[in-house]
């Protein structure tokens, strides 16, 4: 499966229904896009695990600012 960031954005939109489709961009600072809290962090970590079988943790999210930052971490850990 080839990883692509638009697909990742679509998966985020599916998971968080308060996000208006089309608003999230690779450069978006995800913490400002919606009500970011620790529960949402877990929901995102869970989605990355089930969709990509990649483990990201709270630290990875703390170090990331944009959607693209998170996507890069997933890419680096993704195995076919």
């Amino acid at each position, binding site marked *: 499966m080839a990883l692509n960031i638009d697909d990742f954005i679509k998966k985020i939109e599916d998971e968080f229904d308060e996000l208006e489709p089309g608003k999230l961009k690779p450069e978006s600072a995800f913490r400002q896009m919606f009500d970011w809290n620790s*529960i949402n962090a*877990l*929901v995102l*970590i*869970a989605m990355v695990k*089930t969709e990509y*079988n990649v*483990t990201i*943790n709270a630290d990875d999210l703390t170090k990331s600012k944009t959607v693209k930052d998170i996507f890069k971490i997933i890419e680096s850990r993704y195995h076919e």
Partner: protein
Amino acid sequence: MATFSVPGIKVSGLAACVPRKEVSNYDYRWVTAKEREQLVKTIGVEKRRHVEKGTTTSDMCQKAAQSLLEGLQWNTTEIELLIFVSQTRDYLIPQTSNILQHKLGLPTTAIALDISLGCSGYVYGLAVASAMMNSFGLSKALLLVGDISSLNSAYRDKSTYPLFGDAGTATALERLEDAPLMHFSLEGDGSGYKAIMIPDGGMRHIVSKKSFEYKKIAPGIYRTPLHIALDGIEVFNFSLREVVPNIKKLLAFSGQDLATVDYIIFHQANRLINETLRKMLKIPKEKIPYSLYKFGNTSSASIPLTIVSELRNQVQQNDLLLLLSAFGIGLSWATATVEFHKVFCPELIEL
């Protein structure tokens, strides 16, 4: 190797008892209405049952056991083993199993013992009880499992109070020569012991005046060292790391196919964890029943309670292969595959 099979033991009966008092997370005024919505949606607990102070786990287990003894028409003198699995026992000492032995009218020749386990308790309890029966040649046993976590949760702790519910259960086990094998895989990792704990009141931090002081742990989280402290992120990471490999290890050992399992019953941790596990295993929703929404996380009782509340007709009428997956406090986790063939299962009891 903690992966093994036990022959010649069957589950004859299963009963569960919950307190009458129902508490709703939509009424949890410590958090905003919006937070309540998010809680119910992500944690997946809408309602749970709370005991009145003075009612204990053993009271509920006793009621459940009595309904089994009556329904199965077992004479109490026939019971040779009683195991009580709980982390909310009646007294610090003595152990509760002997009290239950006495209250239920079991003979003094019956073996009675407590096991202190929480989330993983039912599967460990089933393993120990069935293995003891098989090893010692015992014919009838009662496995009593439950917890009243509500009394250990601080109201102003939004990470624990809305999660836990109370329940007590009883499982009747019987020797049967050609019973299908029960398969078990038991594991643990004490490096994660702080993930779920009550810091004070044991011997490590003997209770003192300071034990009763509330501390602010984080926004919306105030508790004392005598309340349950839950590190949600740790538990979440652990669950996603260990549960699926353990299930796969058990099935590789037993030679069973996940596709032939009729239902998978998870410990009811929270909706986010459980749904993530379900998706990792690619199991359809119909195969994974939940009691979480109505009863909360009932700790050691959650697996048997889920069977009674969601699968009662199926276990009574059919021959089922169930996969039980329990994980949590300790850290401790276990998987079992057990056949439930026309098991006596009375309606949920309320106390």
